[in-house]
């Protein structure tokens, strides 16, 4: 069974894809059937993934020898593209996590999307989304990865814009798609460069080649490749400055946000960088770029999240921030820490998004946290699971987030980039603060009489509970005392970081401080005067943060002034130079044509006449001049 699952890991992405096809072509008119099909296939996929992951993690052989199955997709001189699966501990972890989250999200969606006219379609999209992500994770080469990468982008576009009757949803979908497309262009260039330089895109071959890259190219070229490859993840994983699409992506239905933010889309970038760690590891500068980008993004997003009011928006910025953490970890060379955080983050972020969805569901899509309050009494399961998520993300032991975040801080500290470590620590504080600000505002405090919340149905709360359990205990596989994770997922050699008690304690302290500050500002102070006072006092800062540093506006300006301006200059060039040449040649041709056209009457019969004249001439010439050709005409053998 396990053997089967491992050797048929391609089933994992294929099953949801089949579900997609079935729903689209067969069961679309019957919503319940569609969701049943989708969940059944997803469950099968999850079981397969779990078995495969189990198989991988129980056999130490796979630590260094990934399981690779490939078939030749197409081949020609100098360009051979395979398609296949690449199963190693990282991807095994990923397929397990992705399929699990996707499964839970789908179960959750049966409650959340109930009665929606696009119910079937939604499930088909979810299936396709999961299939794309799983396919990407299992890709054995860069091009295949890129294909699935783009599929992921497409699905996110479809799902973000699912409520296509809303202008904002359409805009958000477009924004997500275009932004990631911009980034993907860089990625594509990087892939092309890899293909040109190394002549292959397969990971296993590249892994062999990368350490000896001097044989193929220069260090500068390697850096360029790494940077180009990094641009893709910057877009996909919402790193500064291409993070703008991610907060808007919550326009989609909340389960989609959970899927995008937790398990699929955004971690794709992290995964891609992790997968190509062998390339990045060779060029220090690229790694440093990754680290800086990650750290800055983490801090930057956290500051924005402090002032936001909409529950999903806060969560979105927290995602950006956490992704920054992951990038930072990669940048300081710790694949282990990065993926560990990816793992834990998937659970608690999915949990929080789904819980937020549950809240929105109950409040009829009223998103502003300031208009909530005391929800925990009416929605105990949602509330308490959310609290668990909050504890996890804030980094309170023994919840999952603590262990992974601690790992990252430790890695940053040990890498010697102390500034980055500092930034990460502050971010940890901010994270705890804005998370608990939200929790306090939404779930505690006074109930708002105008709200009539109610607990969500079981098919929505069960996934919450499952995720809450995972968010609580998911980190226990990577504690200093139980370093299972570190033994399996690493780059180069097994990671072994000595636990640093100071860092651990300081991070707990920072988290506690953040929670405490939030408590002071938003629970103790019933009128919340202090919070408002603070906001008033630091009005410019508050406005800057609330408006997300005006990044969107800057992009707008950039597009309007720089892009349009340069387009105008190009336009003039086009009109006078390019068109001049084109029109000039056209004029010459026209002049010639006006003379020549008298030979062309447009009358078929005239053409036929000329044609037969030629036939006559040729016949006569052949028959009466050349003896050998006359045989041809007259036929027969002499």
């Amino acid at each position: 069974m396990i053997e089967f699952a491992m050797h048929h890991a391609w089933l994992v992405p294929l099953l949801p894809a089949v579900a997609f096809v079935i729903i689209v072509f067969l069961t679309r008119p019957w919503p319940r059937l569609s969701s049943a099909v989708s969940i059944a296939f997803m469950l099968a996929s999850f079981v397969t993934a779990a078995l495969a992951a189990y198989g991988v993690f129980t056999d130490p052989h796979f630590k260094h020898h990934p399981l690779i199955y490939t078939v030749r997709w197409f081949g020609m001189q100098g360009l051979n593209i395979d398609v296949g699966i690449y199963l190693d501990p990282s991807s095994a972890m990923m397929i397990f996590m992705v399929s699990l989250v996707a499964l839970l999200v789908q179960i959750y969606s049966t409650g959340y999307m109930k009665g929606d006219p696009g119910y079937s379609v939604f499930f088909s999209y979810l299936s396709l989304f999961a299939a794309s992500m799983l396919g990407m994770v299992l890709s054995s080469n860069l091009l295949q990865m890129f294909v699935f990468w783009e599929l992921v982008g497409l699905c996110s576009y479809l799902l973000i814009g699912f409520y296509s009757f809303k202008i904002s949803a359409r805009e958000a979908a477009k924004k997500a798609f275009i932004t990631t497309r911009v980034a993907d262009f860089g990625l594509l260039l990087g892939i092309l460069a890899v293909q040109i330089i190394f002549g292959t895109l397969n990971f296993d071959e590249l892994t062999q080649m990368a350490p000896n890259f001097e044989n193929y190219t220069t260090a500068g070229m390697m850096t360029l490749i790494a940077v180009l490859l990094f641009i893709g993840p910057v877009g996909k994983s919402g790193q500064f400055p291409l993070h703008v699409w991610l907060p808007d992506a919550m326009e989609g239905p909340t389960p989609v946000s959970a899927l995008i933010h937790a398990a699929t889309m955004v971690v794709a970038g992290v995964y891609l960088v992790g997968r190509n760690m062998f390339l990045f590891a060779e060029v220090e500068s690229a790694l440093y770029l990754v680290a800086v980008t990650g750290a800055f993004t983490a801090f930057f997003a956290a500051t924005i999240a402090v002032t936001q009011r909409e529950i999903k928006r806060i969560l979105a910025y927290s995602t950006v921030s956490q992704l920054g953490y992951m990038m930072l970890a990669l940048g300081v060379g710790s694949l282990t820490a990065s993926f560990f955080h990816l793992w834990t983050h998937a659970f608690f972020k999915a949990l929080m998004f789904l819980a937020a969805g549950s809240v929105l569901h109950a409040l009829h899509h009223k998103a502003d946290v300031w208009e909530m309050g005391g929800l925990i009494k009416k929605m105990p399961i949602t509330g308490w699971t959310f609290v668990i998520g909050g504890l996890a993300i804030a980094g309170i032991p023994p919840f999952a987030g603590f262990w992974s975040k601690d790992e990252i801080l430790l890695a940053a500290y040990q890498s010697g980039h102390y500034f980055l470590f500092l930034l990460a620590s502050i971010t940890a504080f901010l994270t705890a603060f804005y998370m608990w600000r939200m929790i306090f505002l939404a779930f505690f405090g006074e109930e708002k009489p105008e709200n009539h919340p109610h607990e969500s149905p079981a098919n929505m709360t069960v996934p919450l509970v499952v995720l809450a359990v995972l968010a609580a205990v998911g980190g226990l596989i990577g504690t200093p005392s139980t370093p299972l994770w570190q033994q399996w997922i690493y780059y180069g050699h097994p990671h072994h970081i000595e636990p640093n008690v100071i860092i651990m304690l300081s991070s707990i302290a920072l988290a506690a401080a953040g929670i405490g500050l939030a408590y002071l500002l938003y629970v103790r102070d019933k009128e919340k005067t202090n919070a408002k006072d603070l906001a008033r006092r630091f009005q410019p800062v508050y406005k800057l943060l609330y408006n997300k540093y005006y990044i969107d506006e800057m992009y707008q300006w950039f597009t309007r002034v720089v892009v349009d301006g340069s387009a105008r200059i190009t336009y003039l060039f086009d009109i006078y130079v390019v068109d001049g040449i084109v029109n000039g040649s056209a004029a010459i041709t026209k002049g010639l044509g006006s003379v020549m056209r008298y030979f062309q009457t447009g009358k078929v019969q005239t053409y036929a006449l000329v044609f037969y004249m030629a036939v006559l001439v040729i016949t006569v010439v052949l028959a009466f001049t050349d003896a050998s050709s006359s045989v041809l005409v007259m036929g027969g053998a002499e």
Partner: protein
Amino acid sequence: MANALGTVSFWILSAVIIFSALMVVISRNIVHSILWLVVTFLGTAGIYLMLDALFLAAVQVLVYAGAVCIMVVFGVMLTRRGNIRHSNLFNSRLIIAAPLVGLILSAAAYLTAASTDNVPLSDGKVPADTVGSIGQWLLSSYVIPFETAAILLLVALIGAVFLAREVKTDDRH
């Protein structure tokens, strides 16, 4: 005697064919042209009979005289305009075309006559069961052209329907 009969019928049929073909070209009325065309086709069928191509003669009558001509008649009726008595006139190329065709004919005739001895004649007999043999040939050695012809006809059918379809601007109700 049989030979003489064959000779006589050949000359008669040839005269009919050439005369009616000329009438096809000369008639000023397109309907007359088509009717003369039917006569030409029937004459050609007669020639096929003389050449022991019984089946082909029947096909000629069925397809050409029975179907193609009717189709052309329909075409004429659908494109009727003005006086049909002068619907089939010559154009200005007559002066060039006439000598050209004459030359082509004389060249062909000369070459044919000149190459009389080059034709490898055979004294073989025509099999009695012509239809059966043709069927065998069509469905064995020539099955691909046969099927292709079928597809060609289908495509022509669809194409003709599509092209000739009238674009309805208003609905009945």
